[in-house]
C-alpha cells in the first residue's frame, strides 16, 4: 500500500485511507467468496451457495465505491509518484477483484446444481486447482498490503501451473464422460468450474502485474519469456530497498 507518511492535507490522507480501506474490504470479501464457492461444492452446502451468490452484491457496490473514491481523489488532489500509482492500481484491482467474485458466483451456481444431483466423486479433481487459486489470491493480496514486490512477481508464473491443471482435469473428465455418459451433464459442470478457476487465475495474474506497477513503477504485462522472476531481475540497479527508502532523508529531517 502507499506510503503512510503524513500528508500536509489531512483530507488527502483520509481520502487515500478510504480508498484503500474499501479496496481491502473488497479483497477480503472476494477472497471469502472464492473459498465459499468451493466450500459449497465440496461440502454440498446449498445455503453457502446462496450466501456466496448474494454476497456478490456487496462486492459490486464496493467496486463502484472504489472507482468513485479513486476518481474523486484524482480530481481533488492530483496525486503523483507512488500515490498516483497506488490510486490507479486500486481502481484496476477493484475491477479484477469484482470479476474474480463473479467467477465465484458462477462456481456457486454450478455447485448448487451439482448438489441437487447424486454426489460425483470426481469433484475432488478440482481440489489442487482450488488450493492453487486461493493461495495465489492470498499471496497477491499480501504482496499488495506488504509492498512485497518479489511475492507479487512470483504470482504470474503460477498461472501457467493453473492452466496445466485445468488442461489435465478437462482431459480426465472427458475420459470419465466416455465411461459414464449418464453423468455427462455433471462432468461438463465440473469442466466449467475448472474453467472458472483458471479464469480466476488469469485475473489474479492481472492483479499481480498491477501490484508490481504500484510498488515499482514497472510494467511487467505481456513480457512472455522475458518476464522477470524477481525484483532484482526487474529493477537491477534501480531496485529500491524499501527499508532504506523509508529510512531515507525526509523533508522534515
Amino acid at each position, binding site marked *: 500500500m502507499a*506510503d503512510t*507518511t*503524513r*500528508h*500536509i*492535507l489531512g483530507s*488527502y490522507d483520509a481520502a487515500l485511507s478510504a480508498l484503500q480501506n474499501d479496496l481491502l474490504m473488497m479483497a477480503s470479501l472476494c477472497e471469502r467468496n472464492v473459498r465459499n464457492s468451493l466450500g459449497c461444492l465440496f461440502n454440498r452446502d446449498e445455503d453457502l451457495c446462496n450466501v456466496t451468490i448474494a454476497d456478490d452484491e456487496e462486492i459490486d457496490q464496493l467496486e463502484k465505491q472504489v472507482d468513485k473514491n479513486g476518481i474523486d481523489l484524482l480530481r481533488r488532489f*492530483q*496525486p*503523483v*509518484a*507512488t*500515490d*498516483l*500509482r497506488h490510486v490507479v492500481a486500486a481502481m484496476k484491482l477493484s475491477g479484477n477483484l469484482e470479476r474474480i467474485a463473479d467467477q465465484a458466483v458462477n462456481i456457486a451456481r454450478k455447485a448448487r446444481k451439482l448438489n441437487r444431483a447424486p454426489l460425483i466423486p470426481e469433484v475432488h479433481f478440482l481440489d489442487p486447482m482450488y488450493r492453487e487459486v486461493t493461495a495465489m489470491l492470498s499471496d497477491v493480496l499480501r504482496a499488495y498490503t506488504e509492498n512485497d514486490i518479489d511475492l507479487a512477481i512470483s504470482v504470474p508464473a503460477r498461472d501457467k501451473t493453473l492452466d496445466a491443471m485445468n488442461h489435465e482435469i478437462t482431459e480426465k473428465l472427458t475420459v470419465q464422460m466416455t465411461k459414464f455418459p449418464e453423468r455427462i451433464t455433471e462432468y461438463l459442470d465440473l469442466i466449467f468450474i475448472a474453467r472458472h478457476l483458471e479464469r480466476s487465475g488469469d485475473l489474479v495474474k492481472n492483479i499481480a502485474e498491477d501490484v508490481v506497477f504500484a510498488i*515499482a*513503477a514497472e510494467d511487467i504485462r505481456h513480457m512472455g519469456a522475458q518476464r522477470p522472476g524477481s525484483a532484482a531481475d526487474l529493477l537491477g540497479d534501480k531496485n529500491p530497498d524499501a527499508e532504506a*527508502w*523509508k529510512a*531515507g*532523508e*525526509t*523533508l*522534515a529531517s
Partner: protein
Amino acid sequence: MERTQEITPQPKPAAPLAATEQSQPPASRNAFEVANLDVWYGQKHAVQDVTLNIPERTITAIIGPSGCGKSTFLRCLNRMHELVPRSRMTGSIRFFGEDLYAAQIDPAVVRRRIGMVFQKSNPFPTMSIAENVTVGLRLNGIRNRAFLRDRMEQSLRMAALWDEVKDDLGKPGVSLSGGQQQRLCIARAIATQPEVLLMDEPASALDPIATMKVEELIHQLSRDYTIVIVTHNMQQASRVSDKTAFFYLGKLVEFNDTDQLFTRPREKQTEDYISGRFG
C-alpha cells in the same frame, strides 16, 4: 550596422558569446553545463554545489519550495544574479560549451542571447504594444522600420498574441489583460531571437485559461528554444517539461526526466515534496 537579414527565427547554431572569438560553435547537445555552482547573497548560501546539464531545445522545469534557490539558479544562467548587491558565485556555467562567466563575456550579450520572462508581467507602461516588442532590438541599435515591423509581427505571432492585438498595436502594453501582458513580455523576450528563454513562474499570476495559453506557447516555443522554467505548480511542471530539477535548501536533490520524476522519483525527498508529505 543594421541587422536586417535575420527575420525568420530559425534554430540558430550557438554563436560564441565573446565578440572577438572566431572559433566554430562546439558540437554540444547541452545548452548549459553547470558544474559545482555555489551562490551566496552576503552570508546566505543560496545555491550549494549544483551540477547539471540542460539539453538544448528541451523544456526544463525547476521546482522546489520557496527559498530553495531555484530562482537564484535560473538567474545565474543569464548572469542576472550579478545585479543583486553582495552576491557572489563559484563553479562554472558553460553555455554551448563556452564559459558564461569568462572575463571577455559581455553580460548584456548574455542577456540578449538568454532571454528572461518574469513572474509578473512587466510591459513598459509608457510604450505601445508594438514598441514593447521591439524595444530590445532598438536598444541593440536596429532602426530599420520594415525589419522592426516584421520582427514585431513575427514575435507576436509566435507568442500567440498577434490575432488579439493586431488592430491595437498603438495602444499601451499595459492596456492588455494580465495573460496578454505576459504573452507580450514573451514576445518581447523572443524578439531579439535568443537561444534560451528563462521563465520565472511565468503563469503564477494568471487565470487558468491564460495559464493554458502560456503553457501552449511554451510547448510551441520549445521547437526552437531551450526553455528553463521555474514553477511552484507541479502539475504545470509535469505538463510542460521534458526534464525536472528538484531543489531543496539550496541543493539539487534530483534531476530526472519529468515522467520519471513524477512517476518514480529516485529520491525520497523528491517523493515527499511532490506528494505533499512532510514527516
